[in-house]
């Protein structure tokens, strides 16, 4: 088997260090989360909103904040002219796996922060089943990272990167969004963990299918 893990790990480390120094994605993500939460807080005021709507709004914030930052992993390589450098030192698959892992860590960390802020600041949002809620956040992060990584690789080659990213992502992420919203509703209603297993199976299947297809397609996207 050709070495995959070591180059992927070092590409992940490279991206993490680069992000901590340049804050290409972190600043965009953080500002979006703060702005979106503030707007929701002001618009809700003292109104009482149903848990179904609140679950949907949580994933609206997560979706659009992901869209505002996750493309940077490939777009910044393209803009800085470092794509040929990576092409010259690694095979396509380790590049994809390293970027996927970086996007997952970024998405999961971001989603935990969003969820905590949402629980703290949105009064009516009460999670009754913590296990279902945090499992949904984890599997939702996997699903978002898997699809947004390959879409980021595609749009990095386009001229209209900013607008194309959410437009391309939405139809691909829609089945995942419907599932995570349903699972979040179950966590608010205090359902048993077993009741949410169907949703979790869909999220795992979605992630596995997207990652498998991405590994096959990435070489064609990555090379001219």
């Amino acid at each position, binding site marked *: 088997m050709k*070495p995959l893990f*070591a*180059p992927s790990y*070092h*590409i992940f*480390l*490279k991206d993490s*260090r*680069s992000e901590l*120094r*340049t804050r290409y994605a972190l600043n965009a993500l953080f500002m979006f989360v703060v702005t979106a939460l503030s707007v929701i807080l002001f618009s809700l005021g003292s109104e009482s909103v149903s848990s179904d709507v609140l679950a949907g709004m949580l994933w609206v914030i997560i979706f659009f904040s992901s869209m505002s930052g996750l493309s940077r992993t490939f777009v910044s390589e393209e803009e*800085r*002219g*470092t794509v*040929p*450098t990576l*092409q*010259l*030192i*690694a*095979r396509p698959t*380790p590049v994809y796996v390293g970027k996927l892992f970086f996007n997952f860590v970024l998405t999961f960390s971001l989603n935990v922060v969003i969820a905590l802020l949402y629980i703290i600041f949105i009064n009516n949002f009460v999670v009754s089943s913590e296990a279902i809620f945090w499992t949904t956040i984890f599997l939702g992060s996997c699903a978002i990272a898997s699809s947004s990584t390959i879409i980021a690789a595609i749009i990095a080659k386009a001229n209209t990167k900013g607008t194309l990213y959410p437009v391309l992502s939405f139809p691909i992420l829609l089945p995942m969004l419907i599932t995570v919203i349903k699972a979040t509703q179950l966590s608010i209603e205090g359902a048993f963990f077993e009741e949410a297993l169907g949703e979790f199976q869909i999220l795992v299947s979605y992630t596995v299918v997207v990652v498998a297809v991405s590994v096959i397609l990435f070489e064609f996207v990555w*090379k*001219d």
Partner: protein
Amino acid sequence: MEKPLADREVTPILFSAKPLSKSFHRRLIFEDISFSLKERQSLAITGKNGSGKSTIAKIICGLLSPDKGSIQCSVAGKEISSEDLFNHIGFVSPYINLYDEFSGIENLVLIGNIRGIPVDKMSQADDLLKRFGLFDRRNDEVHGYSSGMKQRLKYAAALLHHPEILVLDEPTANLDAEGIGVVREAMRAQLQTGILIIATNDEDDLEFAGARIDLDRSRIIQKRT
């Protein structure tokens, strides 16, 4: 201690291009470019701006796919697949960029790690930085480097894995006299054991070429006398 270059064993290398053609947006850049090189041989690709020198260099390194033709390589009698070619090629070009937010040594260690160069051999990163006159600035971030220093660092990065084939696009671009001297020394060293391919119009660089493809006049390899 490393053996002197002249004493090192020379690995048999065969590197060839079967008739290469490339078009961009229906405009033919070049067609039917072929060559075959062995260890200790060199090739220059010359031609005016827009003639396709850099395009050929990119195809040789696997950064671009040709419309027709293919690149074939064998090292020590073993066929190298196109996806493994990057392990045997070093490429320096003005349009290849390193990571500005990292220091010179961090860039080399990062590239070495991704390439899978063993940690005990990473001391050669320091040796390369000394050789290319960057050792004193090794801990400075690359965005503070001049264009000439960046070009020197690209050479260090390209030579880190001791490539059998060294491809240089405009090898002396952005370099001062001292830098040009160091690069020419690296080109000489490459010719002791491996293959050197340069895309240039600089007459002094062409002295290193045993054969030449002139994209303007002829598409046939002309052996120099």
